[in-house]
């Protein structure tokens, strides 16, 4: 379910909301913010790792039972957390990539601050988004550093 606030969000705000939802374990919110392509990719990965095809279909169609959905989304959140591991998640900066993108697509670069002695930022991840009926949705989270 989307909120009115979602429709007004810029790509960088959507990326921030997505990462915050991952960090705080807001599993339903993570799923809400994922676009169709993102959800398909996630389910494909789950199927490739042995998830039952019938369950994959139920999750895709939104007919999975509560516990099934909870377990899947918990695993998804933990996987995304692993992608972001090693970064100071309270100090991330979000910046829209100004390079030309396809219409209805955007890319946000997430940067983590370096040690104050060194200064500056290090790219931590990028988020690819698509505009779905006026709302930005996350299609991909590409980790650049993790550890």
């Amino acid at each position, binding site marked *: 379910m989307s909120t009115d606030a979602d429709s007004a969000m810029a790509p960088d705000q959507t990326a921030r909301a997505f990462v915050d939802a991952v*960090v*705080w*374990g*807001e*599993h*339903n*919110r993570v799923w809400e913010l994922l676009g169709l392509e993102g959800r398909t990719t996630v389910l494909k990965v789950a199927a490739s790792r042995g998830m039952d095809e019938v369950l994959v279909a139920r999750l895709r169609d939104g007919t999975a039972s509560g516990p099934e959905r*909870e377990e899947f*989304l*918990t695993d998804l*959140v933990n996987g995304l*957390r*692993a992608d972001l*591991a*090693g970064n100071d*998640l309270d100090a991330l900066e979000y910046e829209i990539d100004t390079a030309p993108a396809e219409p209805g697509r955007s890319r946000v670069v997430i940067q983590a601050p370096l040690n104050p002695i060194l200064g500056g930022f290090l790219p931590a991840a990028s988020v690819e988004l698509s505009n779905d009926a006026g709302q930005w949705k996350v299609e991909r989270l590409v980790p650049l550093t993790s*550890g």
Partner: protein
Amino acid sequence: MSDLQGPGGPLGGEPDSARPLSGVPGPPPSAPASAFPAGVPTQAGGSTATETIERFGRPMRHFPVAVSCEAMALAWANQEDGPAGAIVMVDHEIGPRGYHGAIWPTPPADSLACSVILRPALAVEEADASWLAVGLIALRASEASGDHGLSLWWPADVVEGPERDVISSVKAEIQLGPGKVKSVVATMRFDLIKLGLGRDGRDNLLEQVVGAVDQVSELLSEGAAAVAAAYETRCSIVGQRLKVKLRPKGETRGTVRSIDRSARLELASPTGMVERVGIDQMMQLTVV
């Protein structure tokens, strides 16, 4: 196990300081002077028997100096089949390490350091409930010495007031047997000054510990769930919003909903996702 009480050890100093405490015999007249402080195990053949006395109605060993009360109690429990309720007290611990190896910062003169051997009837999967039991013992003993507004701070501290000043730290060293807990060495360290007892209050507090062990042992006999419920009601971490760094890596965040019978912290997210953090998984905990 060795227990050398010989005079002239590096921490023994003057012969007077090596004189045994009440009920703790010194070395036999012919015993050679030891190069080790009392309580430090040496190679076989160089030891004297450890004296067990009875205090507060239970067996007790008292060492002026030892590596730690936990080490001495573990040896008693494992090598000599020390009975449930047996107590080890050490005046000066060389390595007073607690949860995840944290050093107890209070000087020995201002501390009570003791270990109690427990033999609870717990299943292996509930073994960590022993941590909760030890926390409850430390809390009840501290509270018996006066009203300090104390609470438990998962997993190993008794704290005072909103500043969460640490009054006592605990550790549970669990030995497992086939399908069940074989023994638990419950180690507690108290700050006598913060408890308002002063250096002379050690004996009184030890007596309160003994009473609290009896109370909590009764609770343990009702099962791990009863211990967890009792712990949760006194644990000020419940309801807090936390950031938890995990071992070996990663972190999780959420609001503490409860503590389960395996002593795991149950963190709930705003959308209802529940994660459980075990005692061994926790590296650092921050209230946010």
